[in-house]
């Protein structure tokens, strides 16, 4: 688990921010991205984005003037909004990792009506569709340019 290289403050900030990006929803019966299981997945998955995410979190703390997770709710909202404007590529990387982990959680997938499984080996069914739609195109004369 300790393969993420983030400080304890950064871990708390990341969790708080993830929960702001995607909070839990009773209406859709889904956890937030700060849910323990999902957040642990996020921490495990920083991978090639680790440096960007560290950069993003330093930037976030700098905007707030202290650890993001320690801010009052109202101030957090302000800081998050400001960060969204200026966060650039590091923030995009952070959001990407949050989304990658959030949308593969079983509970979230089920709420979307998706089966919580990898594509292989079961695959999916795709309907053939109505091939008579092609009749007007079949009736067209050749349309490629001829060359000698």
């Amino acid at each position, binding site marked *: 688990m300790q393969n993420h290289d983030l400080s304890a403050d950064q871990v708390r900030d990341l969790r708080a921010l993830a929960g702001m990006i995607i909070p839990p929803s009773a209406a859709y019966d889904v956890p937030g991205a700060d849910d323990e299981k999902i957040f642990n997945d996020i921490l495990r998955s920083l991978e*090639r984005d680790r440096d960007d995410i560290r950069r993003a979190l330093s930037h976030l703390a700098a905007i707030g003037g202290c650890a993001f997770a320690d801010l009052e709710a109202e101030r957090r909202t302000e800081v998050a909004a400001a960060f969204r404007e200026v966060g650039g590529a590091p923030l995009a990387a952070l959001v*990407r990792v949050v989304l990658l982990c959030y949308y*593969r959680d079983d509970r979230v997938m089920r709420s*979307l009506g*998706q089966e919580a499984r990898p594509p292989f080996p079961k695959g999916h069914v795709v309907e053939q*569709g109505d091939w008579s739609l092609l009749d007007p195109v079949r009736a067209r004369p050749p349309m*490629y340019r001829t*060359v000698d």
Partner: protein
Amino acid sequence: MLDKVDALIVGSGASGAAVAWSLADTRMRIVCLEQGDWVKPTDYPSNGRDWEARLFSDFAINPNRRARPTDYPINDANSPIKVVNFNGVGGSTIMYTAHFPRMHPSDFRVRTLDGVADDWPIDYATLEPYFAENDRMMGVSGLAGDPAYPPHQPPMPPLPLGKSGARFGKAMNQLGWHWWPSDSTIATTDYEGRARCINLGHCTPGCAQGAKASTDITYWPHAIRAGVELRTMCRVREVTVDAHGMASGVIYYDAEGKEQFQPAEVVILACNGVGTPRLMLNSVSAKFPNGIANSSGLVGKNLMFHPYALTYGYVDEPLDGNHGPPLCLWSQQFYETDPGRDFVRGYTFQFGRGVGAIMEAIVSANAGRLPWGEEHHGAYRKLVNRRIGLSAICEDLPDEHNRVTLDPDLKDSSGIPAPKLDYTISANSLKMMDHGIARAKEVLTAAGASNIAVESPILNGGWHLLGTARMGTDPERSVVNEWGRCHDVKNLFIVDGSIWVTSGGVNPTSTIQALALYIADSIKQRLANLFD
């Protein structure tokens, strides 16, 4: 020193595999050196729950992001389009999306027909038997009768239309525009020991089912059975020359990182439109101080991508999402030059079925469509599985300013100088892209989509790498002759996309492989006097 071989192929991708298989019946001693490794079916992302995530890690299409030890870095800072590829047995066909149109007869005659660039020294008719042979070897699905092409018969029935395809078909009919099920190298029936497609829908980072025809499972098993030796994890540094200026072999680093010299009678380069010029420019000698076979100065120049203009939107019902191969239809309504337009040449539309749940979230977050907070959930549910889109694959004309050179600092893990790109999208291509976007918006509107968005050019869209060692009859204006032999070095051949004179407006692999088979046949027919 290793024993001398008759033919040494560098690169085992689309073209390297085809040429190896074709030459195998000569019973020559043939070795192929490939810097990457075999990919096992169980390695592919669609085996696991992290299947979409791995598109951002070890199966990223951009080698700078993927950064496997078998990849080489590419300095792409000075290009609005980034190179994407795969380095391993099968080359970039491991990652391709299997859309398999051929070039058209007119594509080989652009100077004669439209007064731009150059004609090819060969034509569609010459390649036709090789297209057909390649279709059989790769296993192509599709439907005969497309009015946009000379007649041909794909060996398997087309991919299913699905919900998205039917929507597109209706929209195109409403507009009165051409569309047709794509030729695709995805097996729709069991084919030559390969299982049929089961719609895993994640073809790009490799097909765990083996339905997508990457050359590791098409040409290579046949070539190896016929006696070709494929040495993996062998990265070629340079092609060497002898006192007569002929290629004497290659220096490479083997799987242990040990330097080896492999002598050869004939050397065949199949490293793609970036890897081949890189290797040639790295092959410096007293005879060729600017890189092997580069007396024209054109090695690395005239790099062509196909700039892709993607336009997409969202409909009000769930469609196929990522279920099923992503590309199944094309339109060539705007393919041929029309004097009424403000650009020459044209483009293919390729229609996209949809994307996976995570990809949708990421792309929509980047585009600012996904709010943070409570509203995130509702907004996302209006997007997921509701996307349809189409890309204009624009013909890029050759321009010497668009080029591959060697980066002065950047090196791969073997210490070999890495390629650097300088590329600008031309005014003609930009106009073509705008035209494509405007037409695509009409298609999407007719298909009932709203919330229309554009990505143009597709940033990670440098999948077609062409033109950097062009073919021609004039040694001052081309690098290889009309059958792939270097003008300057008579036992050095190039079979990959580098030799393209112009790019057409189609995905290139069908034509790259037909050319490789044609060059192999040309070699076989001339074996007695190959170096004359």
